[in-house]
């Protein structure tokens, strides 16, 4: 498709433009914070999209890896005296390692069985983070040392807006590169037919495993970002509800679409902020919006809107 190249570059261009231009209309640090939270969630969603959107493998425990990354930067500097940025890498390596170890048996499961397998795995991670209070501070959470680069403390919404924005663009670039490569085509192929993919010479198990590892690393780095940004973290970040939220971001935005993952993250992060004016109707409205969006745009927002535009153009 002529579009492949332009689609990849267009997506990147849109993202870069968004990150660069949004601050021009931000009246206060609060907006920077919300936007930074969007970029951070979007990073995890873009990673999960590699697993779910490309390869079609559901993970209902992905927040577990988010939690590993978050607690790596909480525990590493406080207990082991390591620099925060090293802990980001260690957390990512640990998440990738765990994903690699548990991925083989778990990814043998299919469909809803895969869902419950990953869900169980995520619950276990959250349980450990809640229970091992000596290390993690327990359910009340633990504070996280600020990120320091060359003795400069990095904190505050503006700094984190740019950091998370840059990391997201970088992560999206990697994901888009992957999409348009033999491995990416292999993942998208096995999504539709594992047997046909295998007979095309694709090592299905290995590709699924790498997608799982990549998605885990994305989630872990996003978790580290959030922990460093907030300076405080609780085990809820690794919990079932957060896993569901990440999945919902990918599906709402549109499975397989990098831009969709960002849009899904933006929607689910900003909605609770926007819905505060409805006070006690907030929850009901949130549920209603999710339902309506999925019923009317079942491909997800970005692919759905793209298709509508294409249809109205023709």
């Amino acid at each position: 498709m002529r579009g492949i190249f332009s689609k990849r570059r267009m997506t990147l261009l849109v993202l870069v433009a968004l990150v660069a231009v949004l601050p021009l209309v931000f009246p206060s640090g609060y907006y920077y914070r919300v936007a930074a939270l969007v970029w951070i969630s979007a990073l995890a969603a873009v990673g999960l999209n590699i697993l779910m959107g490309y390869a079609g493998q559901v993970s209902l425990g992905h927040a577990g890896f988010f939690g590993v990354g978050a607690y790596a930067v909480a525990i590493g500097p406080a207990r082991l005296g390591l620099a925060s940025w090293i802990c980001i890498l260690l957390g990512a390596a640990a998440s990738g390692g765990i994903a690699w170890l548990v991925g083989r048996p778990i990814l043998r499961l299919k469909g809803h069985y895969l869902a419950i397998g990953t869900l169980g795995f995520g619950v276990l991670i959250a349980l450990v983070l809640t229970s091992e209070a000596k290390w993690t501070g327990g359910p009340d959470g633990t504070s996280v040392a600020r990120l320091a680069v060359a003795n400069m403390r990095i904190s505050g919404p503006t700094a984190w807006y740019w950091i998370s924005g840059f990391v997201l663009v970088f992560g999206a670039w990697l994901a888009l590169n992957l999409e348009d490569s033999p491995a990416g085509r292999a993942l998208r192929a096995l999504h539709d037919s594992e047997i046909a993919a295998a007979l095309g010479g694709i090592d299905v198990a290995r590709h699924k495993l790498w997608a799982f590892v990549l998605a885990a690393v994305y989630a872990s780095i996003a978790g580290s970002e959030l922990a460093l940004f907030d300076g405080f973290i609780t085990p809820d970040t690794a919990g079932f509800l957060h896993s569901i939220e990440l999945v919902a971001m990918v599906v709402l935005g549109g499975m397989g679409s990098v831009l969709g993952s960002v849009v899904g993250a933006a929607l689910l992060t900003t909605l609770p902020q926007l819905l505060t004016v409805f006070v006690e109707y907030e929850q009901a409205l949130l549920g209603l919006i999710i339902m309506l969006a999925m019923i009317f745009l079942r491909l997800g927002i970005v692919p759905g809107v793209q298709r509508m535009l294409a249809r109205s153009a023709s």
Partner: protein
Amino acid sequence: MSALAAENVAIAFGGIVAVDGVSFSVEPGNIFSIIGPNGAGKTTLFNIMSGIYRPGSGRILLAGEDVTGLEPHRLAAKGLARTFQNLQIFFRMSVVENVMVGRHLREARDLMKALFRFPSVGHQNRATREKARELLAFVGLADRADDAAGSLPYGGLRRLEIARALALEPRLLLLDEPAAGCNPVETEAVEGLVREIVRSGITVVLVEHDMRFVMRVSDRILVLDGGKKLAEGTADEVRRNPQVIAAYLGRYGSKEAARARS
């Protein structure tokens, strides 16, 4: 040395024997067909040959090498490709991308290079796309390359599967009912394709219900019935085999038998 051989292959599902001690051998460069009534075990045999099922007993030899129970992607690496009776199209991808997937083994697949998009990845993508377009031209789908795979008509999807299988540059191609659901014109086109594929040096094994088609193209024919080998030989031999006639007459009436003889 034969391109493909089965030795006493058998498989059972929950006590029901689907394939029962079947042996045969395919000479390189031949078109070898497997026929038989529904439930004779044709597709099961295909699934064993392509590594989807592991046979309960017996061996499969690919170019003389024992490949029994090898995973499908390893068989692909050894030069085996196949199409599917129940189409296995990658519907989320475009037509040309479907064929590009088939080039997987012919591509450099370094994950890090792909992620960071080394220049070689872009070059290779272009080369793969070019090759895929050639194959689409070969099966007559050149003008549909950029369409969504799902938008192709049924006959087009069958040809797309053939193009994808050829992208692997196989030595042996298994075609599972390539003409199923095709009208006579489309069937003729498929027949032409099969002949050209063999001419390019690829051995073809096919399962097909269209007897005229089978009789026209096959060098040798294997007849299965109830999971067992009923007969094997050239089209003429099979056509005259009294057991084959009996099987078709006995169970499926004179019409099928007549068709087999015509």
